[in-house]
């Protein structure tokens, strides 16, 4: 495993009597996209606010490339680019003026770099319009541009795909993957959209009530647990005949969902089942397999969403 980019060490946060973050420890490595998921009120935003120094931890520490955020704030935060909560910008300034404003706050950002970043997020056209005329998606892109200006080693994005259209989400996703793989940037993403996180991240940390419930590698095969079955959806005609074959020959319990049969089986058996059905003169229009077990897993982990 590569070098650690950010380390959370026994992080604690109490506000009044509320114990918001309880003993949170994990490490994010360079070139890794880390997803932080959890239900509302789990402490995602609090954790991110502590990562960027907007909140002081009650106890514990955060190290960014070895620099403590408590004692070495400037050195630590220099390597971080972030959007916290919504991408808010000065509404009365143009996109360009906003970026110039942030560029002036960190030494060594050239105009070329700003143009490069604008091109990356695809804001060339509206960059000279006032931000108050921007849509949420455009503001989100400007927020990402702002976070990338100083070429940080760690990028922290709170709900980065919020308000983006599908094409925009795809672009940003590809861009984030690219940053991690080619430029070795550690990316931390918080979201409650599981599918989104699953597509973007290498590793997922699940938070519930301020505690880390699980860390899951995305590409880890899901079948490691006793669940080796996958769900197969089959559109066939005549549907009754297909159902009876499945029931009698394989002892499945196919469910009817309109004209689609749904049943669970081992992945390696799928071709032979299809072959059998075709041999019995059944017309098959489509077969698909639902692989997303992450969502189930997520709900197993967090249980019901109760805000305490």
């Amino acid at each position, binding site marked *: 495993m590569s070098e650690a980019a950010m380390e959370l060490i026994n992080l604690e946060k109490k506000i009044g009597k509320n114990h918001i973050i309880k003993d949170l420890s994990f490490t994010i490595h360079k070139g890794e996209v880390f997803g932080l998921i959890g239900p509302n009120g789990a402490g995602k935003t609090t954790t991110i606010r502590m990562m960027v120094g907007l909140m002081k931890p009650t106890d514990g520490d955060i190290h960014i490339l070895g620099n403590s955020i408590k004692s070495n*704030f400037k050195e630590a935060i220099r390597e971080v680019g972030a959007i916290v*909560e919504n991408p*808010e*910008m*000065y509404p*009365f300034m143009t996109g360009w003026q906003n970026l110039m*404003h*942030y560029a*002036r*706050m960190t030494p060594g950002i050239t105009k070329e770099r700003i143009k490069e970043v604008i091109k990356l997020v695809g804001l060339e056209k509206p960059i000279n319009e006032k931000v108050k005329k921007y849509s949420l998606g455009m503001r989100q892109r400007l927020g990402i541009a702002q976070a990338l200006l100083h070429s940080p080693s760690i990028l922290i994005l709170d709900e980065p795909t919020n308000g983006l259209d599908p094409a925009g989400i795809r672009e940003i996703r590809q861009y984030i993957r690219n940053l991690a793989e080619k430029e070795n940037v550690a990316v931390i993403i918080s979201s409650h959209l599981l599918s989104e996180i699953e597509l973007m991240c290498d590793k997922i940390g699940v938070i519930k009530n301020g505690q880390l419930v699980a860390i899951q590698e995305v590409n880890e095969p899901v079948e490691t647990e006793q669940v080796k079955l996958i769900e197969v959806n089959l559109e066939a005609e005549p549907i009754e005949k297909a159902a009876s074959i499945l029931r009698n020959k394989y002892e499945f319990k196919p469910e009817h969902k309109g004209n689609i049969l749904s049943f669970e089986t081992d992945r390696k058996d799928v071709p032979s089942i299809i072959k059998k059905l075709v041999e019995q003169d059944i017309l098959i229009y489509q077969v698909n397999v639902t692989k997303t077990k992450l969502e189930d897993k997520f709900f197993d982990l967090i249980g019901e969403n109760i805000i305490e």
Partner: protein
Amino acid sequence: MSNFFKLVSNELIKTYIQKSTWVMYIILVGIIIGLAALTMSFEETGDKYDQDNWREMLQQENKDLQSEMKEEEFMEGMNTSLIAKNNYYLENDIQPEGYGALQFVMENQLLLSLVSLLTIIVAAGIVANEYRWGTIKLLLIRPISRTKILLSKYISVLLFAFITLLFVLLFSWVVGAIFFGVNGLNPHIVLEKSNGFAYVPVLGEIASGYGYKLINLFMMLHLLHDINYF
């Protein structure tokens, strides 16, 4: 240090891009032009004392003022001091100089309380608005300490006050020059001071008047900033 300079210029840019700041300046322009027009129509400003008969003119003026006082009692206070002033000119044998741009600038000292008001509006918003827009988060996650960011805001408010004051000064002079003409480089006038009348240069009066008001303004801002900080 250049880094801090950039922070201050950031704050100034933000202040001056906003429309509300421009509205403030438009109000100032309107008031200054309005004052010039008022002065023009109510006061006889020309070069009426230019002739050799300025003594007779002053005496005539005193007589008019006295008769006016008898008719309308409420004019008494003002007219008495005007008469006293005219007498001072006569007693000391000083030829009064005409009303010009610099006199107008001097009278516009009273606008400085408006400048204070505008500066306080800017100062009150400079931190609060960052919270309102939510942009404070993006300021605080830069490798710059909070103290430095607040200090840069404080300095930029001081600069705003200074620029606005300079604007009032210069714009008053320009408007004064257009309306009343330029009347010498440093004319002198008689003014009522705490220890009676004195014959003083207008430029000196402008410098001390604006200077004291500026100190007053800075003191107020400092107080406001301290409150802001906590």
